[in-house]
């Protein structure tokens, strides 16, 4: 309606079905149109970076579980790699493969969650979400088999991984990988032929590649805008340079493209895992490293590609057992940089869907 | 079965309806004249129109003894026209109210005393 009513303030969150956690949007609405938008985070702030200064590098690995609790494996991996680069410790070959397998499994699980909640935000009453949870459940089962935890895995260690997967792991993984292409096709047929879903996601929340790069976006949000940037390719860590996989990029940069990029990344992850299972060498799953891990004074910024983007660890050592400064570059927080520009001027449902497509995890935003 | 004391003796005649209609019409006039808010004034007008409808229908029903050739249902047809006019009038008047608010930031008719919009 063009007649402007009185603008009013709407508090979306901290408890709201579509904020995916304790996230608050303070929105000035003019009818259905958002005139101003302010995001308020920090409800889950635990001052992880301060706590980390009191703990050894190994003790900090569980904190990374709690940061991005939907992708604990990649958080673990990022810290482990950062410390390894800092200290020169190396992980055995088998451990690198296991890391790849679990990181990619975690990517599938996280993307399933992200896309499922995105469709829920678009108004489908949880059906796609629960379908995608089916795969996620199986992946979490695999995690539980291996390390005993489903969500906060604490699996990656400095110099390897904590456990060798049990014997039942491999057939179960094979079974899951065999049915994944069928599942992704099923989602594609369910959702991409759905006019309503297309109408809700096409040309909504468009991010141009220029904005995406300048706004420090990373991960599917960046690739959805058409920028072919993936740290697994650009700066291969673990053994990613030994696998053959592609990087999907979107064309328009809208919600739909980000959704599709995630769907395609799931397929690519399946490809990687299949290759890794074929190539994985026998051997130890972790190297012996000194208990007293004292990196020399210095600093490092090391990053890996988490499902949400570039999760970086900036570690400063002063030679003591604990990091002098521990900074986690949170991709979910930084991807929200453009939220205000995207939201202002759009309608409330579009803003909700756009927020869903950015895929935030509050544990990581607030740390 | 015992006979229930009949209310039948309290018949309803045309006069009853006319009195009700007159009361509602009078209240409508008060509302239309005495309210500051343009929308409230419109409510008064609607009340008056309703009262008129009631009169028309009452006459239509109690009019069997009218002259030959008169349609007893003419009253109903008139009411249909009144309804039409009421709908049109409501639409226009509310549009005007919104317009007045947009130009003058008020719908208080006491303050809308400027003919030059």
């Amino acid at each position, binding site marked *: 309606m063009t007649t402007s009513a009185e603008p009013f303030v709407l508090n979306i969150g901290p408890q709201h079905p579509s904020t995916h956690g304790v996230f608050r949007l303070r929105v000035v609405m003019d009818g259905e149109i958002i005139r101003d938008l302010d995001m308020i985070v920090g409800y889950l702030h635990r001052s992880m970076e301060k706590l980390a200064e009191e703990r050894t590098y190994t003790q900090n690995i569980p904190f990374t579980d709690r940061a991005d609790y939907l992708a604990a494996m990649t958080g673990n991996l990022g810290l482990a790699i950062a410390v390894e680069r800092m200290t020169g410790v190396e992980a055995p070959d088998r451990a690198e493969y296991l890391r790849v397998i679990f990181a990619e499994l975690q990517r599938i699980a996280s993307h399933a969650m992200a896309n499922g909640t995105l469709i829920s935000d678009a108004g489908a009453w949880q059906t796609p979400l629960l379908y995608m949870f089916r795969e996620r459940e199986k992946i979490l089962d695999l995690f539980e088999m291996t390390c005993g935890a489903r969500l906060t895995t604490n699996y990656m260690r400095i110099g390897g991984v904590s456990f060798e997967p049990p014997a039942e792991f491999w057939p179960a993984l094979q079974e899951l990988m065999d049915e994944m292409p069928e599942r992704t096709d099923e989602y594609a047929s369910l959702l991409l032929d759905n006019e309503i879903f297309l109408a809700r996601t096409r040309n909504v929340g468009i991010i141009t590649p220029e904005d995406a790069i300048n706004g420090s976006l990373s991960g599917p949000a960046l690739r959805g805008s058409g920028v072919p940037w993936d740290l697994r390719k650009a700066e291969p860590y673990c053994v990613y340079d030994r696998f053959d996989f592609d990087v999907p990029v979107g064309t328009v940069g809208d919600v739909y493209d980000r959704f599709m990029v995630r769907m395609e990344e799931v397929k690519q992850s399946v490809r990687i895992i299949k290759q890794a299972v074929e190539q994985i060498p026998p051997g130890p799953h972790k190297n012996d490293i000194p208990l007293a891990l004292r990196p020399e004074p210095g600093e490092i910024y090391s990053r890996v590609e988490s499902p949400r983007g570039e999760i970086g660890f900036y570690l400063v050592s002063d030679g003591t057992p604990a990091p002098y400064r521990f900074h986690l570059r949170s991709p979910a927080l930084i991807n929200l940089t453009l939220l205000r520009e995207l939201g202002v001027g759009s309608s409330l449902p579009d803003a909700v869907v756009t927020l869903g497509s950015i895929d935030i995890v509050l544990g990581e935003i607030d740390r | 079965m015992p006979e229930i004391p009949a*209310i039948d003796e309290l018949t309803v005649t*045309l006069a009853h*309806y006319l*009195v009700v209609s007159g009361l*509602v019409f009078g209240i409508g006039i008060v509302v239309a004249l005495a309210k500051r808010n343009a929308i409230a004034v419109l409510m008064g007008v609607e009340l008056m129109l309703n009262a008129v409808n009631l009169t028309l*229908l*009452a006459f239509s029903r109690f009019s069997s003894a009218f002259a030959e050739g008169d349609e007893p249902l003419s009253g109903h047809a008139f009411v*249909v026209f009144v309804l039409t006019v009421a709908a*049109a009038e409501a639409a226009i008047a509310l*549009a005007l109210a919104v317009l007045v608010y947009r130009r003058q930031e008020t719908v208080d008719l006491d303050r809308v005393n400027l003919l030059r919009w």
Partner: protein
Amino acid sequence: MDSTGIVIGFWVLSGLSVVSALLVLLARNLLHSLVFLVVTFLSMAGLFITLSADFIAVAQILIYAGSISVLMVFAVMLTPLASRDNGNSIYLLPGLLGGLGIAALVGFVAVDTDWDERTGEGLAATDFPGTVNAIGDLLLGRYVLAFEIASVLLLFALLGAIVLVHDRPRSGTAASEGGDD
């Protein structure tokens, strides 16, 4: 229809309509008075049923309670919070006088006239079996000209409302305001 029902219905509904019409006048909040207005409309529709005018009653519900009240809701919501009171203006006294006068006049005429003489046998008058077909015949027969005029009127009201409320482009508004000054 049953005469007893009509008598009970008349007294209940007429009481309801007069009281809620009074409450439209007395309510402090504009929305409250809107609610009472709807109650008036509905009880009026009930009165129409006692007059054996089922089509008009349903149309009354449809148009007044369903549409005009919603239009008013929109109008109320489009105006600011501050002007949602239902205050009285300086014309309260003249209004009261006029309203009372007209009510008294109509009441006097209604009571004083010998309607039985004019309408025959009063209540046992016409019980229309079904009014829809007859009204349709009338509208497209005897009153077809009025019917067409009414439809044109509706069309013009539609267009007029759109033209009135339609937002002009920003520059145009600025220019006209400048012209005013």
